[in-house]
């Protein structure tokens, strides 16, 4: 039984990371119907900036906590600027283009960012500085670490904060209005450009946060780390109903759990016919089944042409 709980914890942590990244996808999609495929790369840049800033400050003798805060601040600021820049340069000029165009641009930006990161940080794997204390717990044969607890807590808090932002603030109201009908919203005095830029900036800041969590958890980083992570998070967002914040969170956690339990039990369930290399397939089968019965995802609202 302890093995089962261990797998649940593995899945929960992995799922929280997916959820944190998925929030960035779903926020942008919810407002402008664009799948920002470069979001995984924003996460990657967030991790790498933290490594550079916090790593060099620690080397210079600064206490770990201060260096960590500096790294966090720097990476959030850089990612916000990056998100704003992406929107301004790559997506705003295509606002009225056919929907396929910005999608292809997003994929292009993802490749550009990967290569820029490769030039700046090199091809080698980088080790993430130990910003969070290494505390391990054991509880009835189940092992977990402080970092894992923090990851789950941070993702839950972030989602709560986002829900507050979207449903309780003026900016959130503007966002919802833009999502419903950009033309009418702008007639009502909402500055669409600013709202969309804000969505990108906030989403990217979340990406930076996710990057730091991923870095602290695996303690490694690489210029291509964002690709797979982005794809999985996107899957999670679709699973939960893209455009829906709670859905992204739920989809992420669900995907993490499916993966962990799939890898852990698929071999036993099929009598060794399928092994743990089918864990991804398992996750995607669940996705397909969900989409067959609920095409807009678990929590997705039925919308017309826009979603």
């Amino acid at each position, binding site marked *: 039984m302890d093995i089962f709980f261990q797998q649940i914890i593995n*899945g929960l942590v992995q799922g929280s990371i997916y959820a944190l990244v998925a929030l960035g996808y779903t926020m942008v999609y919810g407002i402008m119907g664009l799948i920002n495929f470069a979001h995984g790369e924003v996460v990657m840049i967030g991790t790498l900036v933290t490594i550079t800033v916090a790593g060099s400050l620690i080397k210079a003798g600064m206490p770990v906590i201060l260096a960590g805060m500096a790294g966090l601040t720097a990476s959030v*600021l850089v990612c916000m600027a990056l998100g704003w820049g992406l929107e301004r340069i790559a997506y705003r000029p295509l606002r009225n283009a056919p929907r396929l165009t910005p999608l292809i641009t997003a994929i292009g930006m993802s490749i550009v960012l990967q290569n820029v990161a490769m030039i700046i940080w090199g*091809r080698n*794997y980088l*080790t993430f500085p130990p910003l969070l204390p290494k505390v391990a717990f054991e509880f009835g044969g189940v*092992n977990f670490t402080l970092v894992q607890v923090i990851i789950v807590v941070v993702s839950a808090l972030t989602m709560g904060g986002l829900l507050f932002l979207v449903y309780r603030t003026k900016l959130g109201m503007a966002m919802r209005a833009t999502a419903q009908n950009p033309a009418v919203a702008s007639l009502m005095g909402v500055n669409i450009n600013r709202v969309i830029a804000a969505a990108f900036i906030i989403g990217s800041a979340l990406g930076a946060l996710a990057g730091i969590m991923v870095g602290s958890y695996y303690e490694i980083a690489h210029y291509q780390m964002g690709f797979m992570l982005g794809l999985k998070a996107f899957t999670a967002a679709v699973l939960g109903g893209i455009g829906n914040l709670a859905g992204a969170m739920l989809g992420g956690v669900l995907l993490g759990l499916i993966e962990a339990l799939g*890898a*852990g039990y698929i071999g036993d369930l099929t009598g060794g016919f399928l092994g743990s290399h089918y864990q991804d397939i398992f996750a995607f089968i669940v996705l397909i089944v969900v989409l067959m019965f609920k095409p807009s995802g678990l929590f997705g609202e039925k919308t017309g042409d826009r979603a």
Partner: protein
Amino acid sequence: MQAKLSVVALAVASVFALGACGPKEEPKPVAAAPAAAPAPAAQPEVLVKLGHVAPMTGPQAHLGKDNENGAKLAIDELNAQGLEIGGAKVKFELLAEDDQADPKQGTIVAQKLVDAKVNGVIGHLNSGTTIPASKLYADAGIPQISGSATNPKYTQQGFKTAFRVMANDVQQGKALGEFAAKQGMKTVAIIDDRTAYGQGLADEFKKGAEANGLTVVATEYTNDKATDFKAILTKIKSTKADLVFFGGMDAQGGPMAKQMADLGIKAKFLGGDGVCTPEFMKLGGPASEGHFCSLPGMPLDKLANGPAFKEKFVKKFNADIQLYSPYVYDAVMVMADAMKRANSVESAKFLPEIGKTNYDGVTARVTFDEFGDLKGGAISVYQYKAGTLEYVTTVGAPMDVVKAEVKEAVAEVKDAAQAVAGAATEAGKDAIKAGADAVKEAAEATKAAVEKK
């Protein structure tokens, strides 16, 4: 709005600041060769194009770069020597291609090299890309020497163009199985990354382990891009295996060792050449301590030309040797050596000479068997200790090492015999007896050395 603008401005400024300081921290790859070749003398010059293929992007890019550096070093040295082959001065040129460790991409760049009419190919790095690409080279009659593809299939397809300067996984799997049994391991869990290399090595290890009385209690899989192994490791934890064997590369192995520690798994970790790198220890951190890995060949420090190569390499590229660069260096040299002996740079003419190679390389004395495999390849086992790879033992030592040991033992016998003779003339039966004992001992030492072989 004003406040927001200034935040954005600050953020933009920090991007530039970071962009400016980013590159400085990275060890600068020395892109241009230090001394660009001066204008060559007015003499007919033959251009020899050597293709080199390795992943230059993706999770194994650090190993690909390492391979390319090995090839570059060899080519620069060859050009500096000013070789003359077939009466003309030759200039070697490296056509470096990126196969992204992807079999599909591997055949695409292989076709590109075939179309570019390269004289020979060094690589690829991964077995998974080398095997499909080798057919294209074989069809075009282009000799191929890999310094790192260890899957046995590569040379067993019956292609006359396929060679490797490294022991294959049959030898490696067998040696590692033997080693695990000697360490007193009883049960083992095997993980592979589903690549031709990882799967091949894991399969061979399984055979080797079972032949030595170990029980395989779990077989799990991951992929060569994964970072999270907790689910499969948790499953392995429930089997209480003594040993976790991983067929795969360092980028997965390092984090895997770390996650084993996080989950409280006490089993030892054992891997093949793909994880036997400084990168593994960097990624695994303290969790890599005490685990084992193996490398075909002997440790560089124990080889006659090893330390000199290391010095040259570090000086030229300002980077440590990751893994295969000495083998790739040898691969280039073996090909150039064959060209010299054939007195031709034409693929068809120097190809037969590669099979007859007897070249004293950095990593081994290179001779090939009828398949194109390195003859008498040794496997060395290392342990990760305090951030270095500590040499543990060599399984299946190459012939000349055994010969040297035998020679040493024979010399000891001779010394002892002389001592006997000396003692006899000095007088005293006791002395003779002592001498006889020494002979006996020395004889035993000889026997032991021969048995080791």
